[in-house]
């Protein structure tokens, strides 16, 4: 298994990034984070396109950067394949010339990769004439033909139309799995990372806050910042903790297990909240709320509710479910098995209860506990 280790600091005029990455690279690893959190800079630094001010970067047994030893291996010598966000195809060269640009590419290889990525019929076409998906395939072929030790993908699907995304995601995952090249991608699209990646690192303010198997990370964010990046939106403040219960201005809630002392927030996914049904849902996890607004999102509707302390809680309800009109007072039901306890940002959280068994391993070998480096 290849190991990528980096501990670098980058100081720029309006930008400070210090990322500490120590991850096994096997299959696809995604770095997730909001726009501007330093993901792309992180990728560019690994590729050698940005020079850190200090630190070290190693891949497998090779040291690529070491500020103390004044080592800085050029991008040309790192043997990486990189697909840029806008694909960076050479507009003055045809598809065939683009693919054959890199090192180690014979015309037999070019034919092979064009065949494999179904772009043979475009070999004499210039990139300007290609669709987003075709450009992506050319860029991938151009990167993979050089037999890289590490494939870096910068927002691989951001230039693809929404209607084609799912299909192209599928193709990309299959292709990378078949080639077996360890891949690191950055994205701010949760769906892309969830679907493509075997492992996910969540990046907040230039730091990897959580790293692990994709399903595990998505279901068990370690703190509020990570939860926000992963699309969790409901955060109920907790003011005091009693035996098996929490109190706050929005009310109180009894829990079947004792919460940890550093619990600062309760969180629950919008799709798990429902309206309490008398006689069915226990009173212990029901909360009073007022409906503020309803947004129709096609497949489902989002109901925006306000709790007693003005905390806003969103819930997703099926599009055909009859809903109370805005202004009505309702009781919301929070199923205990979906409630998470989070500590304040920056510290580790304790999950209230294991929600469900982890998704089965995606077939690339399990990580041992030592391999999981949560920073």
């Amino acid at each position, binding site marked *: 298994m290849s190991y990528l280790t980096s501990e670098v600091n980058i100081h720029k005029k309006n930008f400070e990034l210090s990322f500490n990455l120590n991850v096994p690279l096997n299959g696809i690893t995604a770095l997730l984070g909001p726009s501007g959190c330093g993901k792309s800079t992180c990728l560019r630094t690994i*590729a*050698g*396109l940005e020079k850190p001010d200090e630190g070290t970067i190693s891949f497998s047994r090779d040291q690529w950067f070491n500020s103390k030893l004044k080592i800085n291996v*050029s*991008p*040309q010598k*790192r043997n*990486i*394949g*990189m697909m*840029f*966000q*806008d694909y*960076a*195809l*050479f*507009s*003055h060269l045809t598809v065939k010339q683009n693919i054959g*640009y*890199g*090192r180690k590419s014979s015309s037999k290889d070019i034919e092979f990769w064009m065949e494999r990525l179904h772009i043979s019929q475009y070999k004499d076409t*210039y990139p*300007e*004439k290609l669709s987003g998906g075709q450009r992506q395939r050319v860029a991938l072929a*151009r*990167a993979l033909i*050089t037999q890289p030790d590490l494939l870096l993908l910068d927002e691989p699907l951001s230039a693809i139309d929404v209607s084609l995304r799912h299909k192209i995601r599928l193709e990309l995952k299959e292709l990378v799995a078949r080639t077996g090249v360890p891949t690191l991608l950055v994205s701010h699209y949760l769906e892309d990372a969830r679907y493509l990646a075997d492992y996910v690192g969540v990046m907040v303010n230039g730091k990897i806050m959580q790293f692990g198997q994709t399903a595990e990370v998505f279901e068990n964010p370690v703190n509020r910042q990570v939860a926000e990046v992963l699309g969790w939106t409901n955060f109920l403040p907790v003011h005091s903790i009693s035996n098996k219960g929490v109190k706050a201005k929005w009310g109180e809630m009894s829990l079947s297990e004792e919460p940890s002392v550093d619990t600062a927030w309760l969180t629950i996914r919008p799709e798990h909240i429902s309206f309490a049904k008398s006689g069915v849902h226990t009173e212990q996890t029901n909360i009073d709320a007022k409906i503020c607004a309803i947004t129709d999102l096609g497949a489902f509707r989002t109901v925006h509710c306000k709790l007693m302390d003005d905390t806003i809680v969103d819930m997703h309800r099926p599009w055909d479910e009859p809903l109370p009109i805005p202004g009505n007072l309702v009781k919301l039901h929070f199923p205990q098995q979906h409630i998470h306890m989070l500590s304040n940002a920056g510290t580790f959280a304790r999950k209230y209860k294991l929600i469900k068994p982890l998704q089965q391993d995606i077939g690339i070998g399990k990580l041992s506990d030592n391999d999981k480096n949560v920073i």
Partner: protein
Amino acid sequence: MLDIQSIFVTLKLALFTVCLLLLISSPLAWWLATTQQRSKVLIEAIIALPLVLPPTVLGFYLLILLGSQGAIGGVWQSMTGEPLAFTFAGLVIASCIYSLPFVVQPLQAAFESLDKSMLEASWTLGASKIRSLFTVVIPQIRRGLITAIVLGFAHTLGEFGVVLMVGGNIPGATKVISISIYEQVETLEYDSAHKMALLLLMFSFMVLFFVYAINRRWQVGIKT
């Protein structure tokens, strides 16, 4: 009668000037296109000066600079024993300064519009910086490059005021077409003046026509 000698001097001057200017302007334009330094504004203003200064003003200062007592001329004379003012070498230096913005500005615009990720892509594909220069940068900026060459060449070809101030009117050494035409008009040799002027006009037109045709072909070539 055509003044072959001055045609030859003019072409030689334009050729020398363009070659020298490309060597100086390429790194300068790259720096201007990529730097974040504040001094960029000052340098840009200095480079653009010949665009607005009357050629006689520029020529006057250049004459002082290139003269045997001047900063450049003095050093040159102590090194080579030859003066710079009223020589072909002095004329080349003056032309370079006079035509500098016509070469730097198109190159700078071309470098600014160059997609840097293409350059980076070529590095990650293992291409050395020299290979990237010839296979990515130059093909990408070729229109800007051709524009710079043609503008630099054509501007030098039509030079008058600066040449007269710095080079004088020495046949075979510093007498260029525009001065030859002026001299012929002064001596009322309208026939010769007509021939020379028509030659310059046709040459300029053909060069510009050629450039636009090439640009159009490249544009179409990329699109199909």
